[in-house]
């Protein structure tokens, strides 16, 4: 047994690569599928790692660290790069002192995202070099190489990941950390103060830099042709290289791009000249295909592949070879199994109360987006982080009559990420809006990351905690109430009062996530079948621990955490705690 080999997620391997490269500062905001990069990095004591309030703050922190002279990193999901786009575009102009590497994880197929944008456009638009690994070993290797390239070309370097790279484990042979001496900071306003006169000079530098990178991309081993049968040639990068290899084996030749910005020209011309029919296999946009066509190369791309969803070996096999594997399915109606709010989730009763109020719910990004699904169905819009608050303001400005029957809902972490600016806008521009902060004391959807409201750092060390009530009051909200969502009557009252209040109001619905280790489950509830009339009132909250057996409610004892929400809904006292009582 080779002890040095490990089976690592792409994200874990990337973190290892950062460590081996001598990186000293890591600042990120969690986002599926990128989260584990920073969680894994935090296990290495030599790197100062943190969760920032959002991706813009994270990248600006990493940029500041690199200017000061240490290698720095920031990781995010694709939509996070939208938030961090502002510093990215100008960091491209300033360049770096020590290396700056930014990982961006795309989510083709939208396993856990609100869109499937293609981050490669950001590399070209911001003129920032971008590498794309195709397995965990490459995640490690490319992370190290990215720091070298960053310093060599004086540029931030983007690492593009995707769900199947970030969340697939493959075999990695780790190396050792090489300490990199801190680079001295030398004051240089022409390079680091981006006001027009200086920025013009830097733009010239950027254009020259790209020419040098293009020359490098032509001969770099990162972009390589692998020749087998030359009837079919496939140009690909990242996970699509693996799909192509699996689908076609040695029946095709491959041009594997490890660097997707800038793209080579002559190397691609040579490959296309060697192969009879060339395909560009890339999920999402026709980024490489467009480049090839601009070079006048004859390639197939989106004429045979979709612009939507993630690819697979089966998709490539069918599109290129016209082959499909036989498979069976059962002649049964198979009901879907959408994700649901967990048993005991504090969001459940809040959404039930909103549904009862028949209000327009301006939603946001998090576990609680599941409140949009049946049977709660209590969400009208979800766009991006923080948009619940600012969108509600616009709605209420458009027609002030909306205000009495509309609310925004967003989580504690989302509120800090970019809800607070929307709330300032509500107070400043005087909209009569009601914002509900679902404070479950954690960043839930991405798997329990600390945030500035929890009082704990990424490492779990005690730190300052944002006082949400005081913060809301400080920006000019005079009506701030805190309620326990599991007290359904109180929650309903708090919502009604906030909606009736003249002026902006905030309701903080506060109860920790039921999955937190610090939250102890209460004994499972049970039903008294003599009392249960089968009215299904308890089913209206959509708790997965409840089911109907022979017309009566049954509670799954291994799932139930005893939150008591279903008991509050039962008009017949049929749901009881194990001691037999009905009171909470």
């Amino acid at each position, binding site marked *: 047994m080779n002890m040095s080999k490990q089976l690592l997620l792409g994200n874990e391997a990337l973190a290892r690569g950062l460590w081996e490269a001598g990186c000293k500062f890591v600042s990120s905001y969690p986002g599926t599928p990128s*989260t584990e990069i920073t969680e894994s990095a935090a296990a290495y004591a030599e790197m100062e790692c943190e969760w920032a309030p959002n991706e813009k703050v994270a990248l600006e922190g990493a940029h500041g660290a690199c200017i000061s002279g240490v290698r720095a990193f920031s990781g995010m999901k694709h939509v996070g790069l939208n938030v961090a786009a502002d510093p990215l575009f100008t960091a491209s102009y300033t360049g770096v002192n020590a290396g700056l590497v930014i990982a961006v994880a795309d989510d083709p197929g939208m*396993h*856990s995202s609100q869109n499937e944008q293609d981050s490669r456009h950001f590399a070209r638009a911001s003129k920032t070099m971008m590498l794309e690994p195709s397995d965990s070993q490459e995640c490690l290797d490319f992370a190290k190489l990215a720091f070298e390239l960053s310093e060599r070309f004086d540029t931030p370097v983007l690492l593009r990941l995707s769900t199947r790279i970030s969340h697939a484990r493959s075999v990695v042979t780790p190396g050792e950390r090489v300490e990199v001496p801190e680079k001295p900071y030398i004051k240089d306003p022409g390079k680091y103060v981006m006001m027009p006169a200086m920025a013009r000079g830097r733009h010239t530098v950027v254009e020259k830099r790209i020419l040098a990178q293009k020359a490098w991309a032509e001969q770099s081993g990162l972009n390589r042709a692998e020749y087998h049968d030359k009837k079919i040639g496939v140009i690909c990068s990242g996970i699509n290289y693996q799909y192509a290899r699996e689908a076609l084996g040695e029946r095709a030749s491959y041009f594997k791009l490890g660097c997707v910005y800038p793209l080579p020209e002559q190397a691609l011309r040579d490959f296309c000249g060697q192969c009879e029919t060339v395909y560009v296999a890339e999920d999402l946009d026709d980024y490489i295909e467009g480049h090839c066509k601009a070079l006048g190369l004859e390639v197939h791309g989106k004429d045979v592949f979709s612009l939507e969803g993630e690819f697979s070996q089966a998709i490539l096999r069918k599109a290129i070879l016209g082959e499909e594997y036989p498979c069976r399915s059962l002649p049964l109606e*198979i009901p879907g*199994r959408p994700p*649901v*709010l*967990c048993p005991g989730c504090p969001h459940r009763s809040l959404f039930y109360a909103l549904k009862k109020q028949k209000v327009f719910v301006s939603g946001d990004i998090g576990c609680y987006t599941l409140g949009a699904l049946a049977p709660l169905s209590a969400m009208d819009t979800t766009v991006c982080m923080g948009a619940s608050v600012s969108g509600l303001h616009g709605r209420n400005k458009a027609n002030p009559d909306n205000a009495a029957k509309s609310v925004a809902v967003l989580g504690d972490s989302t509120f800090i990420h970019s809800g607070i600016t929307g709330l300032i806008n509500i107070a400043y521009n005087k909209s009569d809006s009601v914002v509900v902060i679902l404070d479950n004391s954690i960043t839930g959807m991405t798997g329990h990351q600390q945030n500035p409201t929890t009082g704990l750092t990424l490492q779990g060390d005690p730190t300052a905690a944002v006082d949400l009530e005081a913060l809301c009051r400080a920006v000019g909200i005079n009506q701030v109430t805190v309620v326990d969502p599991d007290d359904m009557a109180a929650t309903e009252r708090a919502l009604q009062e906030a909606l009736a209040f003249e002026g902006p109001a905030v309701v903080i619905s506060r109860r920790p996530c039921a999955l937190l280790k610090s939250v102890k489950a209460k004994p499972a509830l049970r039903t008294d079948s003599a009392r249960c009339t089968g009215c299904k009132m308890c089913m209206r909250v959509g708790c997965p621990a409840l089911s109907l057996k022979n017309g009566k409610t049954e509670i799954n004892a291994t799932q139930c955490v005893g939150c008591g929400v279903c008991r509050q809904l039962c008009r017949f006292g049929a749901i009881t705690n194990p001691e037999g009582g009905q009171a909470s």
Partner: protein
Amino acid sequence: MSEKTKSILIVGVGGQGTLLASRILGAALLSRDYDVKVSEVHGMSQRGGSVVTYVKYGGQVASPIIEKGEADVMLAFETLEAARWLPMLRPGGKVVVNTQRIDPMPVITGAAAYPENVLEALEAAGVDVLAMDALSMAQSAGSAKAVNLVLLGALARRMDLPPEVWQKAIEACVKPQFAEMNRKAFELGYER
């Protein structure tokens, strides 16, 4: 090693512990010097939704995912999920299925019905099925949460890795305080 790639599909409901099963499997295979890829699902789909994990091993594995007609074995933690993911199984592939039934939300709300005859339908379709009540077996091992180790044990019996490899992989992947209970669950499954 130029061995042909083998594909194991692990399906279940978010929260059933499919990830741990895939990690133990991955660790066991890695210790035998196979090339291994394990594809996991994180984020929204974990919240009680249908989840699928892919484990592939052989001389050299390219894609980390399994597509229609490719799986050699399907380990199904829940009966409806076995039906849902059956198209991924190759002709002649095997299914190890837990007879546990977990109602999905459309069934709970009454919008859809849970098909009653999944196991019969699997057998009628000529699928090689090993069905077991892994939940009861896990409970007798000490925890309802050990369904994953019971099923893994049943799978292990049908793979040709030496028993000590599994023991080491379990030790490496579970917390010491749960190792004994998990080992017991694994053995109950292995004996099936």
